[in-house]
């Protein structure tokens, strides 16, 4: 067995040193009946070649996004990740290291985290960031919990245009700690209605930008209204590339920004692992959940980095910890940082422009189809389209033609008849003119059949 270095000779020598005669003697504390007498009923070991064959088998039963015109987004986006990113994160020194508890021999991971925190703070327009959460949705849940700690209030108001899966995650994680209400009918954003719900008990208002349906808002007035009631504004960004073109939540007055960072540096991988962003203002640093990296000096006075503020964490604070989160998204974070470093100011803005330009192009093309209309006032690289038929069925039929057209909103709002004909369409830099024309042609055919 290729991963197990001990030979039978080694094992015998080691048992002798320990002073027992059989390895099962080391399991003597296991209740007699519970120690298995034979192997559990699963296949025996396989060669690497056989393992690869098995996984090729799984893979061949899927349709890779890159093999077809592809327009699916809704919180995960297909961007092109430079090969150098993947190469670097696979270096054993990054890939096979643990959480950097011993800073003297973890400066690589730590400095990269410090760069990550700076980048996240910059794009969100915030003062500080943590070293990542699991993903955007759980980061959103953590933001609501954090707002409770920061404000010592527990009523959270969620916008009707927040990603519905995020809404569900917030509801789950706050079930026993906060009161959560979704205001505005799903799919709509009425500033005044939202403001009307904010009262002295409100810990935070949670909104998304661009929102789940693709529309872009300026939340400055909402922030002012929240602050007037000593509530926090939480802004969710699920497509971080938008921050290269859209005003930052920080500039609108957000107190906590959470995001899904997958778009930068990380592939789709069927939904995970991704990278949750959480940025906030300096004054909330000690209520912030998750790992944080900070600058310090070593015994020689040289700059170095360490995990810090650990007194917030569960290994010190136990039940009083800011969060139960322990593992974060280290390697995905690194991929984010490296990709963002390759982009830089210029590339990040260019990428955003390119995404937006392509989306505008497709929106115009789709809008021109009889019976199809784009519903958005504004958008970045994703928008909602109304079809003259059920969107779920349309997507299935187009998939049979090797076009994956987007997300039928009925998949996320199964009980909402308003959503039946609506399709969420995302366009990134990976989409070609040919891809767009294929979608348009297939949709025309379907619409007129």
């Amino acid at each position: 067995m290729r991963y197990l270095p001990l030979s039978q000779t080694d094992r015998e020598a080691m048992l002798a040193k320990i002073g027992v005669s059989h390895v099962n003697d080391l399991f003597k504390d296991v209740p007699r009946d519970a120690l298995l007498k034979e192997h559990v009923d699963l296949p025996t070991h396989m060669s690497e070649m056989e393992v690869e064959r098995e996984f090729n088998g799984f893979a061949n039963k899927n349709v890779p996004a890159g093999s077809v015109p592809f327009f699916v987004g809704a919180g995960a986006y297909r961007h092109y990740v430079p090969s150098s990113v993947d190469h670097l994160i696979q270096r054993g020194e990054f890939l096979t290291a643990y959480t950097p508890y011993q800073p003297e021999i973890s400066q690589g991971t730590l400095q990269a985290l410090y760069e990550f925190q700076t980048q996240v703070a910059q794009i969100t327009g915030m003062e500080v960031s943590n070293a990542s959460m699991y993903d955007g949705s759980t980061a959103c849940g953590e933001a609501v919990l954090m707002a409770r700690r920061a404000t010592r209030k527990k009523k959270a108001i969620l916008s009707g245009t927040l990603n519905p899966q995020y809404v569900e995650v917030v509801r789950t994680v706050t079930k026993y700690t906060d009161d959560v209400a979704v205001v505005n009918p799903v799919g709509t954003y009425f500033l005044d209605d939202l403001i009307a719900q904010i009262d002295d008990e409100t810990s935070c208002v949670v909104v998304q930008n661009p929102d789940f349906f693709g529309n872009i808002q300026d939340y400055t007035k909402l922030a002012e209204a929240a602050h007037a009631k000593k509530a926090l504004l939480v802004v969710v960004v699920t497509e971080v590339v938008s921050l290269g073109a859209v005003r930052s939540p920080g500039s609108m007055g957000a107190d906590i920004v959470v995001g899904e960072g997958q778009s930068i540096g990380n592939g789709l991988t069927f939904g995970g692992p991704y990278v949750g962003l959480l940025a906030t203002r300096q004054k909330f640093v000690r209520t912030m959940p998750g790992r944080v990296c900070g600058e310090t000096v070593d015994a020689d006075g040289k700059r170095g980095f360490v995990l810090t503020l650990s007194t917030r964490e569960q290994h010190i604070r136990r039940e009083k910890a800011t969060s139960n989160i322990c593992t974060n998204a280290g390697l995905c974070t690194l991929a984010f940082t490296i990709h963002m470093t390759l982009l830089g100011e210029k590339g990040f803005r260019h990428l955003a422009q390119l995404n937006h330009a392509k989306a505008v192009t497709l929106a115009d093309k789709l809008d021109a189809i009889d019976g199809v209309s784009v519903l958005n006032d504004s958008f970045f690289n994703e928008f909602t389209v109304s079809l003259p038929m059920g969107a779920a069925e349309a997507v299935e039929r187009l998939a049979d033609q090797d076009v994956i057209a987007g997300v039928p909103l009925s998949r996320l709002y199964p009980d909402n008849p308003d959503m039946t004909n609506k399709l969420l369409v995302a366009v990134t830099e990976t989409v070609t003119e040919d891809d767009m024309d294929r979608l348009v042609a297939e949709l025309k055919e379907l619409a007129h059949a």
Partner: protein
Amino acid sequence: QEELLIYEIGNSQTCGVDLEEVGEFKNRLGGVTRDNEIGLAGLSEPECMRHYTRLSRKNYAIDMGLYPLGSCTMKHNPRINEKVVRLPGLGDIHPLQPVSTVQGALDLMDTLAHWLKTLTGMPAVAMSPKAGAHGELCGVMAIKAALDKRGENRTVILAPESAHGTNPATAALCGYKIKNIPSTKDGRVDLQALKDALGPDVAGIMLTNPNTCGLFERDIIEIADAVHAAGGYFYCDGANFNAIVGKVRPGDLGVDAMHINLHKTFSTPHGGGGPGAGPVVLSEALAPFAPVPYVVHGEDGFDLVEHVTDDGCSKDSFGRMTAFHGQMGMNIRALAFMMSHGTDGLARVAEDSVLNANYVMASLSDVMTASFDGPCMHECLFDDRFLADTGVATLDFAKAMIDEGYHPMTMYFPLVVHGAMLIEPTESESKQSVDQFVGSLRHLVEQAKSGNKDLFSGAPYLAPRKRLDETRAARSPVLRWTKPE
């Protein structure tokens, strides 16, 4: 040697990617356009490669040497796992593609679920938790949901003193109070104290087994029975599953829920602190409360249950824990690890990891002070009694290991012994490697006892950095680069 920050190397004009030119188009951003400079620094590709290559070389990693961090199971990370996860048919699929186009992905998740259920002897598994602590939350939420369904408002979770910090933190998130159960002198839960603590207010117990002292809880079945008899549930922290995988099924011990750290037992790489994955196996009693989404066998192949509905299989589900379906990338790697070992190899994983740990204990117990009698499971616990009168602190001793070429073991955990040093070699270390490690430790003990204090107090001397000032970092946190005035 020194590596600057990207902000000190790069600038706003340098760019390490080439992108298609943007043609003419009508802006549809609704006027919410970003005008100000973001402040990002860019590097060309060659500069970027070099920067992160150099940084990487300041890390310690499994690929470089033994990584004896107790409770973390730092084992070999096979590269075939990294290869298969990058197959376009697995790496380049979207969680919201039509299910007809991801049948292989659902098959894979179902297959992994089957392996996990079979290895644990449990009837159900929740696949979406994204890490161990997230799995704990899943398990405790399921317990709470089950109790709610029974109409019982129990308020207390029991946990031994030696519990991982995540256990109480998780229980608190579900509104529970924690009651600590003391340990016996032999490092196990005090069964009588536990029984005394049980009552109608107790929702359940969170117990790590093998426990954080590296010992198997001998009375575990009796504990489970007592908890069940009192109407509570048994949550098992599965962080140490590596010691028993393929040898013992938690289902046979009376466990109701247990998370499995795929990144520990099944070797999805730690990556400098994640991502992890923490699927949770569930008993019959808790299975109905599992979170959405999950894979089911439908009429046209596999299907996904994505919503809690008023009737149907998900009616009692406590809800959704994350967007999408969980840590697929970790699932793929874990399944590749499992298939590579097979049922025979996995049992050997447990045996060899336990053998290596006991061998370390046997090889060091004459010079270091083992906290409890053996046999231990896959990690062995020492305390700092052997350092008494040497003037060498546990931390100093650990830092001196860095100069010997090793990552230190886990220190000061578990809290039940003084100056704890928890050593877990894992099954992927050779005898030669373990012998060298033992030799280094023996050398250090000798140095400590012979009064060579300088070797310890200033350690590490040979690392990329000397001892870092953690107090300063915490007192006035500098958490990001800012442009110098």
